[in-house]
C-alpha cells in the first residue's frame, strides 16, 4: 500500500458500529499536508466518531486508517505523539489557572522545561492571555477559553491537528480570531482536520467532506461542491408563513428543492425559465404575502441539502 507516509491522514473503508447502529459506514479519504480538511454534517452524522477513531481513542470495527504514517489500530501510541486533538467541549481544567493548565498539558506531552517556557508564552500570546496567567480558567469568557484550549492542544507542535466542532458556543468575533489562527497554522505546514456544522465555517476549508448518516456523501473543495448545483438556480424567498409556502412550492413538479434559510427559504430549480416569476405567482395564488424573491448564489447548505436528498432518493431506488 502506498501513500501512508506521503499523506498525513489516509482513511480506507473505515467503519464503526455500536451494536446494530452503524455510526461510520465505510468512509475513505486522504488528507494532504497543510490542508484544512473539513468534515461537514449535522449532529450524529458520524463526524466525531471518525475523529475519535483517527485519534486512536476509539477502535474501528472495520477498515483502516493511518495518521502521520502510523496505523491507528496497531500503533495508537505513535499516533498520539504526532497529533493534537481538541474535543467538542474545549476541555480545560476550570479549577486550575491559565498557567497551570498550560504546564499540565505541556507536561503530559513531555515538553522539557525550556521548551515549555517558550511554548507557554507563545500559547499565551495566541490566546491573548498575556498577563492573565494567574486567572482561574473557569472565569475566562468562552472565546478565550477556546483559544487557550487550542494553545494547550498544540503546545507540543503536532504536525496534525484534529478539531472537533471547535467553535460551538463561541461568539462570532472569537470564531473569526480562531479561524485566523487555524489559517496561520495551516500556512506553517500543519495539517488541520476540523469538523463543523456551521456552513459558513466550512467555506474556510481547503477541502470538504460531507457526512450524512455515517456516510461520506461528497468530497471536494467548496467550489467543486458548489458546481454540483450547476444547472440549478437558487432563489431566496421571503414570505409570510414560510413553512406552508415551502410546502406549496415543493408540491410543484418543476421545483427541485426547498430549504429554510434563516427567516427566508431557498428554492432551487433546474433549467426552468423565469422561475422567479412562477414562484411569485404560485405563492400569490395561495394567499401568501411576498416580501422578496431573488436569485442568489448557491451556498454550501444548498449543496448539502441537494446531495442528501439525492443520496436518499438513490438509496430509496436501490432498496426498492
Amino acid at each position: 500500500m502506498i501513500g501512508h507516509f506521503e499523506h498525513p491522514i489516509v482513511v480506507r473503508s473505515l467503519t464503526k458500529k455500536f451494536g446494530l447502529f452503524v455510526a461510520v459506514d465505510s468512509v475513505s479519504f486522504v488528507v494532504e499536508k497543510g490542508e484544512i480538511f473539513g468534515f461537514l454534517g449535522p449532529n450524529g452524522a458520524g463526524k466525531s466518531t471518525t475523529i475519535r477513531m483517527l485519534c486512536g481513542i476509539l477502535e474501528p470495527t472495520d477498515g483502516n486508517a493511518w495518521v502521520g504514517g502510523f496505523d491507528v489500530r496497531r500503533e495508537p501510541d505513535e499516533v498520539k505523539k504526532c497529533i493534537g486533538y481538541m474535543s467538542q467541549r474545549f476541555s480545560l481544567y476550570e479549577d486550575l489557572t491559565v498557567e497551570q493548565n498550560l504546564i499540565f498539558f505541556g507536561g503530559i506531552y513531555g515538553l522539557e522545561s525550556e521548551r515549555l517556557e517558550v511554548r507557554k508564552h507563545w500559547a499565551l500570546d495566541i490566546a491573548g492571555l498575556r498577563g492573565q496567567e494567574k486567572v482561574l480558567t473557569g472565569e475566562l469568557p468562552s472565546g478565550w477559553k477556546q483559544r487557550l484550549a487550542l494553545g494547550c492542544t498544540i503546545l507540543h507542535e503536532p504536525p496534525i491537528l484534529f478539531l472537533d466542532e471547535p467553535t460551538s458556543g463561541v461568539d462570532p468575533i472569537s470564531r473569526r480570531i480562531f479561524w485566523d489562527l487555524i489559517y496561520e497554522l495551516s500556512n506553517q505546514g500543519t495539517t488541520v482536520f476540523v469538523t463543523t456544522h456551521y456552513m459558513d465555517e466550512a467555506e474556510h476549508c481547503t477541502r470538504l467532506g460531507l457526512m450524512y448518516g455515517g456516510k461520506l456523501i461528497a468530497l471536494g473543495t467548496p467550489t467543486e461542491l458548489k458546481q454540483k448545483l450547476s444547472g440549478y438556480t437558487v432563489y431566496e424567498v421571503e414570505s409570510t408563513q414560510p413553512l406552508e409556502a415551502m410546502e406549496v412550492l415543493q408540491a410543484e413538479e418543476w421545483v427541485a428543492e426547498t430549504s429554510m434559510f434563516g427567516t427566508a427559504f431557498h428554492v432551487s430549480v433546474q433549467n426552468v425559465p423565469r422561475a422567479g416569476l412562477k414562484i411569485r405567482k404560485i405563492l400569490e395564488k395561495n394567499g401568501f404575502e411576498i416580501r422578496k424573491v431573488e436569485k442568489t448564489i448557491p451556498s454550501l447548505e444548498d449543496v448539502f441539502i441537494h446531495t442528501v436528498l439525492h443520496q436518499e432518493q438513490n438509496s430509496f431506488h436501490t432498496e426498492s
Partner: protein
Amino acid sequence: MNIVPVIVKEFRQLRRDKRILTVLLFIPGLMLFMFGYALNFDVKHTRFAVYDEDRSSMSRSFIEQFTTSEYFDFVEYLTHPSQIDKRLDGEQVRVVLVIPSRFSYDLARNIETKVQVLIDGTNSTAGTIVLGYVNSIVQQYSLKIVMDAFQRSGKTSLTIPIDYRPRLWYNPELKSAKFMVPGLIAFIMMVTAVISTALSVVRERELGTMEQLLVAPLSPAELIIGKTIPYIVLSIIATIIILGVGFALFDVTIKGSILLLSCVTVIYLVAALGMGLFISTIAETQQVAFMIAAVTTLLPTFILSGFVFPIRNMPEIIQVITYLVPARYFLVGLRSIILKGVGIEAFWDQVLYLTIFTVIILSGTIVRMKKALR
C-alpha cells in the same frame, strides 16, 4: 516520566477544592472526637432515684451500695409512688429502686424480702448493662448479709467457694474509644480512597477532560497511578491525624510495630483505591458514583466490618456477606497491632485474605478500565 505532571495537577486541584480537603482532613479527627465521646458504650453515672418505704438503717446501707458505685448517681428520694412514673417518663432518672416497708423487718428475721428495680429499657444495650450492674450489686450485698449472719451465729470461718478475679486484657478500662480508633481508621481510609478516586475519574469524564488525557501519550497506568498518589498521601495524613487525636483524647497508643501497621494499611488502601476505580468504570456521573460508593463500600465498612457491631452477633447470611468487606480483615489486623501489640503470626490469615481480595479487585478494575478508557 509523565506521572509527575498528573500528580502535580491533581494536588493543585485538591488544594483549590477546600471542601474535599476539609472533609478528608478535619472530618476524621472530628468523627473520632464525636464517636469517642458520643458513640459510647460505657454505661456510667446512671441517674437513679429511690422510693424507700422502709427508711431504716438497713435500707440506707443497701442504697449506699449504689450511691458509692461509679455506675450510679443518686438523684433524690421519692416521697410518693406516683412520682416513680413521672421521673422515668421524664427521663430525669433511668433507674428507680423501690424498697418495701418490710425490708429491714424481713431481713432481720432471715426471711426473703423483695426489692423492685425499675430500669428504663429504651436503649436496650444500656438497659442490659445497667441490669448487669444492679444484679451484681444486689448479689454482693446479699452475700454480705449471709456472711454477717453466719458470723453472728458463731461459725467464724466461711469462705466463698469460687473467688473470681476478672481482668480485662487489651482495653482494661473498657473504653469504647480505644475500640473505635482502629475502626475509624479503616472507615476514613475507605471514604477517602473510594470517594476521591471514583469521583475524580468520573469528574474528568463528565467534564470531557478525560478525552483530552486519552489522546495524550499517557498510558492508563500512568494516569491512574498519577491520580491516586495524591489521595494515598492524603489518606495517610488522615490516618496520622486519627492516631494523633486518638492518643491526645483517648490515650490510644500503637502497641505493636509501626512498620507492620504501615504494610497492612497500604494493602488495604490499594484495595480501597481499586474499589473506587472500579466504581468509576461503571458510573457515568459523579452523583451515581457517590451513590454506588456509599452503598457498596461506606455502609458495609461501617456496619458489616465489625467496626461498630460484632460480626458474630449477626445472622449467618449476613456473616457470609461480611467476607466481601475488606475492612473486616483489615480491622482484625489493626486492632491486633494497635491494641494488642501482637505480631503478624496472630493474624496472618486475615492479611492473606485481604491480599487476595486486593488482587481480585485490582484485576477486575484493570480489565474494566481498559474497556472504559478505549
